[in-house]
């Protein structure tokens, strides 16, 4: 095996130093009845590197990936441009093959990058501070909800129906296991119906822009939270925050989201990267890792370390604030490179292009009699179709267009609604092609 470099001579010398006659002798403590014969597993035979590459290429080619179709599908994972520099940086072995910076003196590069990441996530979300990333957007939201129950010692979370259905499903799973009640608050016409006062609500959760693409009224959410002593949690697309007034500026206590749109490939939704920012007062309750700045013990040079580890599972065991052990450092690095490559103006430009494309598409769809059901949207919107949306989508797919997400599977009501997304990557031509294809399909 090329990944195992031992020669026969090496093995002989090593066994002599150890003082045993064969490698198998080292396994003497495993009862014989539990040991396998080498090569006895029922699995495929090994492939050499060219065959392996060809095999994977063949499997990959069976998928309809986005080089074969034009993507108007969003709903939490977005087809945004990834600058070439992102891949170049995160492929460097010093980043790709490092592990958790338990020994900070040997990991200053990563630690500084994460400190920069924390700064920029906090800035985008308009919050005081951010952590060093979570698994993904959905689990970030669930962790935020659970954190709120320990902040105000309440056992109920209230989540808007306008929050991504998968995120709510993950929330349900987490809360079930922790005996926390989840209540879903209704939304109409694409926005959350004002929250009912509930003194038992540990938190109110909304998405901004929400699952339907609409921009929620965060001032109203803040008001409801103030009235009820609840924590305000907002799930937010970080790219939208380059343009929208961010949740932190509305007084959100915790802001979470999925970092995938900032330099991470869609990859069937994984790995993504969970973003988590909050008010400074909450810093000791945050799940996951945080990097802090410090200095040398015997000098004045600044440096970075993982900090506040007294909250963590490796120290507090069952008393830890969460069981999260890892973060998504490599993806957080991709986010960091992305945010720096685009900078203030690039991020604004990407966000603005998305809005323009969405508005153009809405107006073109109106011309063929398809009206948007949501307004005040960022880059996604819902339309009502005269036919079943699943059927329309498969007809559009045969024309090389991933037309959007049919919502019938997620919400009660007629199966004709479709969620459409336009990122900065969509062009006027592609939008025009979509509209004329849809016209044909519906004819």
């Amino acid at each position: 095996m090329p990944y195992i470099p031992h020669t026969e001579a090496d093995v002989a010398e090593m066994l002599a130093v150890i003082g045993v006659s064969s490698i198998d002798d080292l396994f003497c403590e495993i009862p014989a009845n539990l040991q396998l014969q080498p090569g006895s597993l029922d699995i495929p035979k090994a492939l050499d590197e060219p065959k392996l590459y060809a095999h994977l290429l063949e499997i990959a080619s069976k998928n309809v990936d986005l080089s074969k179709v034009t993507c108007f599908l969003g709903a939490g994972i977005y087809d945004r441009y990834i600058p070439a520099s992102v891949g170049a940086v995160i492929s460097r072995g010093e980043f790709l093959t490092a592990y958790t910076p338990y020994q900070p003196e040997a990991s200053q590069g990563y630690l500084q990058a994460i400190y920069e990441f924390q700064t920029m996530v906090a800035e985008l979300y308009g919050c005081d501070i951010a952590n060093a990333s979570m698994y993904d957007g959905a689990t970030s939201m669930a962790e935020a909800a659970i954190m709120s129950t320990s902040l105000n010692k309440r056992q109920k979370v209230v989540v808007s129906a306008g929050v991504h259905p998968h995120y709510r499903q993950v929330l349900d799973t987490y809360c079930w296991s922790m005996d926390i009640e989840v209540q879903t608050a209704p939304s109409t016409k694409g926005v959350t119906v004002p929250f009912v006062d509930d003194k038992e609500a540990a938190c109110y959760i909304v998405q901004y822009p929400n699952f339907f693409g609409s921009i929620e009224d965060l001032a109203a959410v803040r008001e409801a939270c103030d009235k009820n002593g609840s924590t305000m949690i907002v799930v937010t697309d970080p790219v939208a925050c380059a343009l929208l007034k961010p949740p932190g500026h509305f007084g959100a206590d915790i802001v979470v989201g999925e970092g995938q749109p900032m330099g991470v490939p869609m990859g069937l939704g994984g790995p993504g990267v969970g973003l988590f920012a909050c008010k400074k007062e909450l810093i000791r309750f945050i799940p996951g890792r945080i990097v802090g700045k410090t200095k040398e013990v015997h000098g004045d040079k600044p440096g970075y370390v993982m900090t506040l580890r007294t909250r963590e599972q490796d120290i507090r065991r069952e008393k830890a604030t969460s069981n999260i052990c890892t973060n998504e450092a490599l993806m957080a690095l991709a986010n960091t490179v992305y945010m720096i490559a685009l900078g203030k103006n690039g991020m604004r430009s990407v966000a603005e292009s998305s809005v323009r494309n969405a508005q153009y598409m809405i107006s073109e769809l109106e011309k063929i009699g398809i009206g948007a059901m949501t307004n005040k949207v960022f880059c996604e919107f819902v339309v009502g179709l005269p036919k079943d949306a699943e059927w329309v989508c498969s007809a559009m797919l045969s024309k090389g267009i991933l037309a959007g997400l049919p919502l019938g599977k997620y919400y009660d009501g007629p199966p004709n609604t479709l969620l459409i997304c336009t990122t900065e990557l969509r062009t006027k031509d592609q939008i025009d092609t979509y509209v004329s294809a849809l016209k044909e399909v519906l004819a």
Partner: protein
Amino acid sequence: MRQTTVPEPKLIFEKSRAGRVGCNLPKCDTPSVDLGKILGETREDLHLPEVGELDMLRHFTNLSHINYGIETGFYPLGSCTMKYNPKINEMTARMTGFANLHPLQPVETIPGALEILHGVQSILCQVTGFDYITLQPLAGAHGEMTCLMLVRAYFESRGEGQKRKIVLVPDSAHGTNPASAARCGYDVKSIPTDAEGNTNLAVLTQVLEEIGDQVAALMLTNPSTLGLFEPNIEKICKMIHDAGGQVFCDGANMNAMVGTTRPGDHGFDCMHLNLHKTFSTPHGGGGPGCGAIGLQKHLEPFLPKPVIRTENGKIIADEDRPKSIGRVAGFYGQFLMEVRAYTYLMAYGKENMHRISKFAVLNANYVRARLKDVLPPAHDRPCMHECILTAEKYKKEKGVRALDISKRLIDYGFHPATNYFPLIVPECFMIEPTETENKETLDEFCDALIAICHEAETEPELLHNAPSTKIVGRLDETLAVKQLDVRWIPGAENKEYTRLRQAIQ
């Protein structure tokens, strides 16, 4: 850490100049719009750095020079399985047919993706001996938690949910185990380790006699975090089963067993795997982790959704699972990591799989044998894929701690081993070489440690002051907690941010 010639690192914010952009972005060709009218209030300030592309690349390339990875040098961090990440894995994960898939595109358009997921599941079922594998958990601890959720759902389905509220965890366990148990609403009871390093059977027997009917599960790491195989494993599983409980295997140490022995055959009901450890997906500086869990048939109805399985010879993503615990991740798990794991598994295949554990164990025992005179093993038994040594005598005689030895290793150009874990070994030094390191590297590392132990006897100050690299000396981790500084603050003259800094501190 090697000495480098990189400049003193500055924060990227300090290099920012208004008006620079580091990327050639797409030009929008649809009509411009009145943003205020469409969006309502838009934001005015946005403090993101503005730098050119070359400046940005230099920034990160320089940062990479002050970071240590497997491709920089030997990385013997115990319990982390820092093996080589084959480059072919990176090539396959970047194929457009995998990287450019949307998780919500119609499932009939992703037969190749399902083939990968099903392929990894099938091979891992064979390797672990479990009936089912799910790849939805996003990291090892996430997998632990998912296993305990399955256990809880199982007991609730049998009407025992309220009765069985205790999870037993050995005192040598990873800290995530009790944390995951607590996350699932369980009370945790610690089980001690005996003098040989095995689970203390006398105590376990007593505990089961007293509270066996309240026990939901035992969470056992095998081989243990002491680097030892639990020879009584079948007996322990039977004891728990006889008491009506479930046995979870912490799979952090699967690298010691691949192709040689299978936890599913030992009597475990479920286990988590760290694909980023054993199956070679890159650790990425602390993530993405990549979890998976194996389980026996009786837990199958509760699997998280979607379940990738075959039906009439076709691979499907089954969402219709009435007894499922639900969804534990946004989409299909860490899919691009599964592509890497699949690539790796297929590179080894049927005829080579056992070599992973054989050579991992050989390397660990070699390091153990070479170091036994300077750093004695905590237990006098053959170790599995990692060896646990103790530096207690240097602490007693010279005031040199295991941490000091580790820091000195940085001066010698090696990443340190793991210290102070497991918690039950004094001045613990945990070394995991993995199978991908050659004999010369192991010898250089052992020579360095022998030299350092000699320094501990003769010049202990060298160790107390280590590391002494040009990059940064030993960092004050206590100060970082005392004066929390977790983000850059633009301009001290800015009153709002000054207040923020004061408040955080």
